[in-house]
Structure formats: C-alpha cells, structure tokens
C-alpha cells in the first residue's frame, strides 16, 4: 500500500504527540529540578544542582534510598535464583501440571498489583504475621520472578538439548553440565531478568503500600507521601534522580550486554589464511 506524503506527515505528527504526552511531564520534573527558585515553578531562570546536594543531607531520603536498594537487590537476587530454576524445570522437564505451574508463576505480571498487595497481606494476617521487611521481600519476589522466568525460558528454549547431552557424554554430571554449558549460554538473558526484577522492585509502589511496616519508606513511597504535603524543589530533584536511575540502569545494562555478547562472537584473533595444503572444500571457513 502506498501512503501519500500527507498521510505520512499526519501519522508522524500524531506519533510525536503521543510520545510528547507521555514523556514531556517527565522532562518538566527534570527541568524544574535544576531551576534555582525555592518553589518549583516556571519560568526556568537559571541552573543549579543544589537541590540534589540537599537530598544527601536529608536523613529520611538517605534511609529511603538505602531501604529501596536493599529491598531491590535482595528481591532481584532471590527472584533470579528461583526464577532460573523454575525456567529450567519448565523448559527441560515435561512434568505433570507444567502448564498450570507456568500460569501460576507468571500470573503476578497480569494481575493488578493492588490485588496482589491485598491478597498477600490477607494471607499474612491469616497466618498471624504482621507487616515486615520479609513480607515486602516475599511480595516483591512474587511480583518480579515472572520477568526472570520469561526472559530465561525464552533463551533456554533456544539452547539445543544436544549441547547438554554432549556435555553429559563427555563426563559432566547434571549440575556440572548446567554450570558449564547451560548457564554461560543463558547468562545474558539471566542478567536481563535480574535487572528487570531489580528495577521493577525499585519502582514498585502500589503493592508495597500494603506490605510496608509503619514509617518504612522506599524511595517512591517517600516521594508519594511527601507529595501530599507540597511539591518542593527537593522532591523534584529526588524525582529527577529517580528518573535518571530508572532509565540509566537498564540502558547501561543493555550497552554492557551488547559489548559482552558481541565480544564473544568476535574472533579471539583474526582467522589465519587457510593453508594451501588444505583440501579446497575446507576453504570456506566462516
């Protein structure tokens, strides 16, 4: 189908508008965070980083950042170990009820976080347990494990079974085969899953509100509760930092992964010219 020039311009313009609508508010926050006046408002009259410096002097912010990092790292670590194990079992073993397990484990990304939040809290209440860091951790693991499972599963399906069989015939047992063959080949996907889990734990608000013990703030929850007072410049700075972190970590990870995997594909050293004595059929070394 041919599009007229006008159609293309309209389509392009509309697309730009949609993106602007979605992303401009973020830029507004970031722009205001560097504006010198006490109260975050337009016009932009200068450039300062002092609101960012102020964050480090605020013990509540520092505590919230520490809490968030601790929670996100622990969540991602546990979700990755469990998620990789689950993905391996789901891909390699045709056990009874596999489809049900698959659905159950990946359900949390389909169900609204509100439901998961209330549900887990109620379950804890029934067990006579109160809100705690452990509850938050368990909840975040359940919410983020699907990311690890789905990315890892996808990659594992692409690793041919005969590679693992070859490893076993050569004398590696099941665990050694997993460590030496499967894990290195799946590593980029596992790292991606880890970062996904880390970021979604770090940014999670809705369910966390139900699970956190009193006065226990993660960064996004601190921002949310401060917003109820006023929009301070410090808050804009914190939000801007949060934006930078949330965009920066995945982008950096992708870049590093790209470098890593492309170096693995590149020749360790330039292939030598095929020696003349070799049969001609061998000359097509790729």
């Amino acid at each position, binding site marked *: 189908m041919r599009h007229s020039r006008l159609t293309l311009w309209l389509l392009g313009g509309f697309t730009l508008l949609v993106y602007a609508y979605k992303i401009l508010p973020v830029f507004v926050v970031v722009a205001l965070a560097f504006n010198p006046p006490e109260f975050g408002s337009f016009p932009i009259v200068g450039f300062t980083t002092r609101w960012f410096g102020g964050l480090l002097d605020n013990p509540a912010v520092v505590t919230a950042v520490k809490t968030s990092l601790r929670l996100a790292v622990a969540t991602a670590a546990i979700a990755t170990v469990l998620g990789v194990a689950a993905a391996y079992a789901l891909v390699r073993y045709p056990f009874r009820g596999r489809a049900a397990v698959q659905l159950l484990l990946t359900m949390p990304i389909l169900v609204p976080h509100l439901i998961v939040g209330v549900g887990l809290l109620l379950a804890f209440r029934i067990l006579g347990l109160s809100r705690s860091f452990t509850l938050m951790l368990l909840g975040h693991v359940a919410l983020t494990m699907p990311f690890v499972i789905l990315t890892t599963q996808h990659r594992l399906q692409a690793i041919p079974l005969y590679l693992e069989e070859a490893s076993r015939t050569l004398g*590696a047992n099941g665990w050694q085969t997993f460590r030496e063959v499967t894990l290195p080949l799946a590593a980029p996907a596992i790292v991606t899953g880890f970062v996904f889990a880390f970021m979604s734990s770090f940014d999670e608000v809705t369910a966390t509100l139900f699970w956190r013990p009193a006065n226990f703030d993660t960064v996004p929850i601190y921002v949310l509760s401060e917003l109820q007072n006023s929009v301070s410049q410090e808050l804009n700075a914190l939000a801007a930092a949060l934006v930078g972190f949330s965009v920066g970590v995945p982008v950096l990870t992708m870049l590093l992964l790209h470098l890593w995997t492309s170096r693995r594909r590149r020749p360790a050293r330039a292939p030598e010219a095929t020696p003349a004595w070799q049969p001609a059929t061998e000359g097509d070394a790729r």
Partner: protein
Amino acid sequence: MSAPAAVEMRRVSRHYGSVAAVDDLDLTIAEGEFVALLGSSGCGKTTTLRMMAGLEQPSSGDIVVKGRRVNDVPVHARNVGMVFQNHALFPHRTAFENIAFGLKYRKVPKPEIARRVARALEVVRLPHVADRLPSQLSGGQQQRIAVARAIVIEPDLLLFDEPLSALDAGLRDELRVELKRIQKSLGITTVFVTHDQQEALSMADRIVVMHGGRKRQEGTPEDIYRAPNSEFVMRFFGRVNSLPGTVTSAGGGTMQVALAEGVSLPVPGDAAPGTKLSLLLRAERLRLVPDDGTPALRGHVTGVDYLGMMVRYDVACGGETFQAIQPAEDAVLPIGTPVALSLRGEDLVLS
C-alpha cells in the same frame, strides 16, 4: 569364550507409550569393530544408539559393556564418545576448550590436557584452529573438532549419530574416508547410525539393517549386498526389478526357470516343477543389449535418467516396466529404442 564383547544388547526394547521404537533387539559388537546401524527414519537405529550412550533408558533388556551391565550407569560415567548430527560443539568455547572438556572431568593434569588436545587436533588434521570458536570454523571443520572431542577421552565406545548428513556431498565423501581412517588407526569400537546405504557399505565392518525397531539382517557389507535375506533389505540398497517365472525342472540346488518369451535360466534354489515364482533382480544387473534375434526379453526404452557416471533406463517389456542402470560409456539410448534384456541366473533372488 575369549574377551567379552565390547557391547552387547540383550533383548533390549524401548517403548514410547504403546509404540515400540526398539523391539527385542539382540546385538553383539566385538572389540575394535565398526558397526553401522542402517535404516530409514523411525527404524529405531538412533534410539538404539542413544541407549548405548545412556541418553535413553531401555524399557526392558540389558546393555552390557565389556562384560558389565550398564543399564543403571548414568551417561557421564559411561565413558562413551558421541558425535552428533549437528556437531554439538559448545558455541562459547574455543576448539581447544571443546576438546579439553571431557579431559577436565577425568582429572587429567593440565600439561597432559594440552598434549592430548594437540594430538587429537593432529589426528583430525586441524592443528591450527585451536583458538577459534566453532562459529569461525567451516561445517567440515566443526564436525572434525567434534570427532576430536569424542576420541580424546579414549572412550570404550565411539558413537556416531548421522555425523555426515548435515554436510554437502563433496565434504561428506572426504570426511567418510577420514573417519574410517581415524577409526582404524585408533581401533576404537564404533557404532555408526545412518540412513545412507553408501555410507554404511563403504565404512562399516558389519552392517545391521533395522526396520520397525527390529534387526532385519546383519553381515558384512558384501554379504548384505550380495545375499539380502529379504526383498526389504534388497530394496534398501538400490532399485529392484521383479520378474515372474515358472520352475520347469529342479535338482542339485539349481532349478531351471522359464521367464517370458521363451527365455529359460538356471537359478539357484529348489522348488517343485510347475511352481510360480517371483524373482528379484537389481537394476544394475539388468543389461540392455542390441537385439540379435536369439531368445530374449525384448522391450523398448521409455525413460532415460542421465546421472553422469551412470544412465538409468526405464524399459517397457510385456506389461511391465523394468529399470536398468548402465555405465554411461556408450551413447545414451534415446526413448523408443528397441532393446533386448540380458540377465544372469545367479543374479536372481527369490522374493
């Protein structure tokens, strides 16, 4: 009895649900022997190989290696070298690391690993590719490295699962000769699975023809080609004509059989005079000759398939069409050419 056989399959079966992939198979392989399991896909040859490796468990029966029952020995403890159809090299490891993989788990000291890997690379004639990744090797080189990886561990048993079928024709012939040479020089007991009768004939000391999970015939390549025990096995090794005939006299292991058009031939076998027979003849044993007026089967060419070294003719004769494969030394006969068919009684096989 002397030394125990290298491998014995004793009444081995493998069922998948109600389907028997391998059905009550007995097989004995001598030390240093090169055996080809030959059959079309689904005949059970690969399942048999995988059971020898330990990658599949038999549903019943015993697998015995050097006198020891290995049914319950896990794959990694069996000391088998296996070469897969798609080389199965570890893509994240260099050629050197791939070959060294099995030695690492045999607790071979590092300097000796280096020495043995270098030696294996020489055996497969690729001493210069040690530092390359599999993706930097050609198809033939990849399969050679896979062979090096399998032989470097000095396995009790070397298993090949259609290792040449993913390669193109020229490379396949070259590697076929190469594998045979390596196997003979190392003397490793070898089982080779293939669906290609040429491969089996040219490489194996002994061929086991399989069909429907069962052994149909086993013997040297020459035995199997010359004396197939069934029409099935005969047809596996090429095109076969079937001719009707009637026994006119018999005695002393030879009978006179009358074919059409007054042709009568002595055929090995014993059957009462008057018995109607169906005789089988390989297409390459049926010769087309000029019609000189003597009693002969006559017909005319209806189809020509020029293969370069050979020509395959379809010849209509009576109500039947016969196939004849001739060396392409003379001019190709055009369609419609009248010909006489020449055949020898000793080439005929009773179906």
